[in-house]
């Protein structure tokens, strides 16, 4: 088996003890009915709720190898990133298999689920989830909105960092019938001027993980952005908005409803 980094993953038997180092893969392992094999997770892995019962090994990027080895895993699932190369090499030295999984967008979900299915030796659940997911997403996305509001997504306010088209959240917004106001930026996120935001004049501001108007919206310089001045905020919460999962269709439906409330 070959992982998303192009490395061969060699297992003597299907993985029985798995340490999962990203919230998306942890949720995916539980989704494909391999949750009982997860023996380690990151401190960020909160989904599904049962995952919280699994011992945490700390961070998922550049993780603590000693804590991982102490969980005695036969497979460690990494988020695909150069920051993890050193840890993967260390694990290889002690004979623990590692798989890098690229799971940045919805298009990665099927491949990731099938790879994890093969690694755990049970692809039945993964197969059925994958075959049900695309039609569900298509069904949800098929309802065309009256108008496609342009949506500003801020990762940070001072300096302003906006979400670009490479982000998963941008994908959800587009499926929900919105347009990413900075969809032309190919990065996941990038710093921009408030003037650039004001010039694009987004219809609404998406506030992920918060409720109500954010504190920065009270600052005078932000009042030049029409949507901020008029208080057109759309608040959504829940981890289905923070990483790709098979709950994406629900995220799309919830966001669509929330957008309708602000931009009829």
């Amino acid at each position, binding site marked *: 088996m070959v992982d998303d980094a192009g490395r061969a993953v060699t297992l003597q038997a299907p993985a029985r003890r798995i340490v999962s180092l990203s919230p998306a893969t942890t949720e995916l392992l539980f989704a494909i009915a391999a949750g009982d094999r997860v023996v380690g997770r990151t401190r960020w892995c909160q989904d599904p709720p049962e995952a919280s019962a699994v011992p945490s090994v700390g961070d998922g990027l550049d993780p603590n190898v000693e804590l991982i080895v102490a969980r005695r895993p036969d497979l460690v699932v990494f988020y695909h990133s150069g920051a993890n190369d050193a840890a993967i090499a260390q694990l290889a030295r002690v004979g623990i298999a590692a798989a890098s999984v690229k799971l940045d967008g919805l298009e990665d979900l099927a491949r990731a689920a099938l790879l994890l299915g093969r690694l755990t030796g049970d692809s039945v659940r993964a197969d059925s989830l994958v075959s049900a997911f695309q039609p569900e997403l298509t069904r949800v996305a098929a309802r065309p909105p009256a108008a496609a509001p342009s949506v500003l997504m801020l990762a940070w306010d001072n300096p302003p*960092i906006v979400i670009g088209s490479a982000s998963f959240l941008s994908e959800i917004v587009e499926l929900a019938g919105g347009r990413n106001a900075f969809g032309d*930026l190919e990065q996941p996120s990038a710093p921009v001027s408030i*003037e650039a935001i004001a010039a694009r004049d987004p219809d609404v501001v998406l506030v992920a993980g918060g409720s109500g108007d954010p504190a920065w919206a009270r600052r005078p*310089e932000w009042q030049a952005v029409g949507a901020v001045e008029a208080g057109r905020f759309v608040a959504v919460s829940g981890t289905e908005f923070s990483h790709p999962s098979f709950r994406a269709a629900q995220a799309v439906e919830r966001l669509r409803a929330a957008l309708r409330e602000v931009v009829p």
Partner: protein
Amino acid sequence: MRWSLMVAASAAMLLVGLAVGPADLAPATVWQAVLGRGDEATAAIVRDLRLPRVLLAYLIGGSLAVTGASLQAVVRNPLADPYLLGLSGGAGLGAVAAIALGLGGAWAVPLAALVGAVLAIVLVYRVALAAGGHLDTRVLLLAGVVVGAFAASLMGAIMALSPAPEVRNALLWLLGSFDAASWRALAVFGAYALFPLAVLYGMARPMDLLALGEEPARFLGADVERTKRVLYVAASALTAAAVSVSGIIGFVGLVIPHAVRMLWGHTHRALLPSAFLLGGTLMVAADAVARTAFAPLELPVGVVTALIGVPLFIWLVRRWAS
């Protein structure tokens, strides 16, 4: 001649700064908006974002150049700049701590940076005084570097231990930006800066004496101890406020005073206002580049001042040497 040239360059650069930006506006449209005509969205961009922004950049650029010149006079070391004296470490620690602790509120990060910078100033000042009851400028420099390194280490510890990925955004903020510019920010900083700027200008003559060395200055009737203390406190307090508004923007305080000295000599009565005009002009130019070079992306303005300031400095040194 020299003054009118510098004032004209300032005015021209302010106009350029006003005319360019990520929003594609014709110069005529910008001018109409300044005069209060045109549509509402354009008016908001020009009058509420660009105009206060270029003015704030000018004011902060000028202030940093003046503080740099003053501190170089105090410690009689050409390397002196507010950030070498521990201020950036303190400000950075404040900002990172505020974000790591999840302090809410619209002004939490700038205020925390201000508190951190002031604490660093007080600590450096106390250490420098501890050596024999008078302000030893060599100890002052040393204390600045040491306090700065200590703060940087604490910052590293917070970043390593903090669960908030947002902490890295604090570093981006520290690299400097005028994105938080508004009429309110301009008014608050302007009102605040006026007093230390006036104090520093009022000390121009004692600074000239200090430049001769502490012994000769004392011999010529300067109250050396008081001069050093007042200069250090006024310059640091001004820089701390600048940091809290726009992050750490280096090289202006270092390069501009040297440039002015090489071009027009060492008398502080002329050096300080020249440094202000030139520092403001350079900062507005740097900010214009930061906003437009990769629009809609914005470069940290501290990166641009270094990119402009360092070649400028090398050119000046070569010219001066030949």
